């Protein structure tokens, strides 16, 4: 069925079709609509979910953890401060290897308080042991939310699926929905290896794990993350074979003969692709790489993509506040260390607090990257793009 949906509506539709056992959530702009839509599905009997309208995000994720440990299929949604309040519980969810799916609507973290998009919220949680998949549009948000359930339950790690606040969450686009009965059929039931509700076989979860065991358990979790990429790839292929929409780990656009490229995440993928087309019309050999799966970081695929060009503009919608630039920039510099082919890198920190990034601005980035290619050197590695006073 083809419909017009915002990102939030698309994610809520996915949740309705998934029909999780438990949803525990708390309202926060710009993710509130997901929770609202879901509450109406519960009220109208469209889902059989036990819905827990928690009194905070911390409690929402805590309830998700309890429910997932009890064997339920569990989902939640949040943004920015909500994710920050969940921070403690993010690590506990992943450390307990609980396959929770979280719809995250990217919003700038306070302070100053702001409700619009940047990636500072999810990127501040990048080391929490959650998979992070950044989507480009409502269709991808919808499809990825469904896939995330399967990915999480196979890897036994929680998954965060993100959309850009307002840009995707409130932007309406064409979305192709899967038939209601096909989603649960494709997902199957959650089969938890151990659950709290098996009272005849009692288990203890969340033990005190000291010097003699903690490291081994953490090592297993690291190994699960190390093994996650092939599972994501398998699920994405299976999804494509079943429903006809295929997704990459790293999205490459007109990269075959590109000399310079930008690397982006989220909705800037869409804006950037238009900029690439315009530049191509002018005869400029430019391309775009979009990091879709951000955690685990797709080292090999990313290397393969970015080493195709001589100059790479890495566009980060957050800063690490470390003097070292943005997150993607640091990840890419790290993976390029052993690489023989090493493009010149320039880091563009842009769009903080929802500052718009236009097609023209990305075209200007391309012009600058082409100049760098001609000169053969980068004068200033980290720039703040689209901000007064630069």
């Amino acid at each position: 069925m083809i419909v017009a949906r915002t990102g939030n509506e698309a994610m809520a539709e996915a949740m309705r079709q998934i029909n999780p056992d438990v949803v525990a959530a708390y309202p926060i702009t710009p993710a509130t609509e997901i929770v609202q839509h879901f509450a109406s599905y519960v009220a109208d009997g469209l889902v059989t979910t036990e819905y827990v309208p928690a009194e905070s995000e911390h409690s929402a994720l805590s309830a998700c953890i309890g429910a997932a440990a009890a064997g339920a299929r569990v989902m939640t949604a949040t943004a920015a401060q909500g994710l920050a309040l969940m921070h403690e519980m993010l690590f506990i969810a992943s450390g307990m290897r609980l396959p929770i799916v979280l719809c995250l609507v990217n919003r700038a973290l306070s302070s100053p308080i702001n409700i619009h998009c940047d990636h500072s919220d999810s990127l501040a949680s990048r080391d929490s042991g959650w998979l992070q998949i950044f989507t480009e549009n409502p269709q991808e948000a919808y499809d990825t939310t469904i896939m995330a359930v399967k990915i999480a339950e196979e890897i036994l790690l929680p998954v965060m699926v993100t959309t850009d606040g307002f840009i995707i969450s409130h932007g309406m686009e064409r979305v192709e929905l899967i038939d209601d009965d096909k989603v649960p059929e494709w997902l199957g039931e959650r089969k938890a290896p151990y659950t709290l509700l098996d009272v005849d076989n009692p288990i203890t979860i969340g033990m005190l794990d000291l010097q003699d065991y903690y490291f081994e358990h953490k090592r297993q979790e690291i190994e699960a993350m190390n093994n996650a990429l092939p599972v994501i790839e398998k699920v994405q292929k299976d999804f494509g074979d079943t429903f006809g929409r295929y997704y990459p780990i790293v999205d490459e656009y007109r990269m075959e003969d590109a000399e310079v490229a930008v690397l982006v995440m989220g909705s800037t993928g869409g804006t950037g692709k238009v900029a690439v087309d315009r530049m191509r019309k002018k005869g400029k050999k430019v391309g775009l790489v979009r990091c879709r799966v951000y955690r685990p970081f797709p080292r090999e695929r990313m290397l393969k993509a970015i080493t195709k060009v001589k100059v790479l503009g890495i566009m980060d919608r957050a800063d690490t506040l470390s003097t070292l630039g943005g997150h993607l920039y640091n990840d890419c510099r790290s993976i390029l260390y052993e690489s023989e082919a090493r493009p010149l890198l320039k880091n563009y920190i842009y769009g903080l607090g929802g500052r718009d990034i236009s097609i023209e601005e990305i075209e200007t980035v391309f012009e600058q990257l082409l100049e760098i290619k001609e000169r053969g050197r980068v004068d200033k590695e980290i720039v703040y793009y689209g901000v007064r006073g630069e």
Partner: protein
Amino acid sequence: MATLKELAQQGEKFLSGHRACAGCGATIVARQVLLAARYPVVVGAATGCLEVVSTIFPYSAWKTPYIHSAFENVAATMAGVEAAYNALKRKGKITKEMRFIAFGGDGGTYDIGLQALSGMLERRHRVLYICYNNEAYMNTGIQRSSATPYGAHTTTSPAGTVIPGKLQPRKNLTEIVIAHEPAYAAQATIGYWNDLVTKVRKALDAEGPSFINIFSPCRLGWAYPPEKTVAITRLAVETCIWPLYEYEKGKYRITVKPKEKKPIEEFLKFQGRFAHLFKLKDQTPIKEFQSEVDRIWERLQKRCAE
């Protein structure tokens, strides 16, 4: 009324071999509560002494399903477990009757966990929340909580040359819980095991959220000989420092009425945490503590008469 014989025949769900101190009140609470449960139970614990002493990997003292996730959220975690149970039962994936019990210390309940507890009560999750109340943060080494009584010495409300211990009276958490109109609420203590067992059974049969605040001495933090644990709880009841009462269907009832109300000194004098009060030239702190206890006891009696 439970009999000791009946309880002795009930299989233990909280086993020996854990690492609690000799004379620990919290572990007696866990054992008595689980012995009282006539249903299979899933247990959650907040971070704290009980959690730390009972689940050091790879050993667990819990012969019943158990989860610990963090400090401030055992009410929310168990609300999630109960939600999962409701969902899976509705879908026919679970058929067994079972109950859910959350254990938190006073730090995890009165202070950092108050919001999650309030949420659990307001959303009417059918969970029994047990506060094992030892009146301070004992696991981190005896720091004041909002359950710490007036005058008590703790490491963060030390009895100094100028300030004689904690200057504020205890928060009345049981009344805060009752303001949520739970299905059942009570105060209990381990020295009155039959009263405690009866309350746990009532709470587990109540259709809705329930809460029992269980006075649970800590021999280390209160500084008394370990063999006095049970005796101290009896003195707490006899002095009306810890009244045993319940709240059910809108009615208050005192469940154990002391024959004669003893002065609080009888309770205070056994414990090192109050020793400094007796050395003061000015006995005002003890008098103020006594008048606070009297005021709350009288108010409680009035509520029971209503």
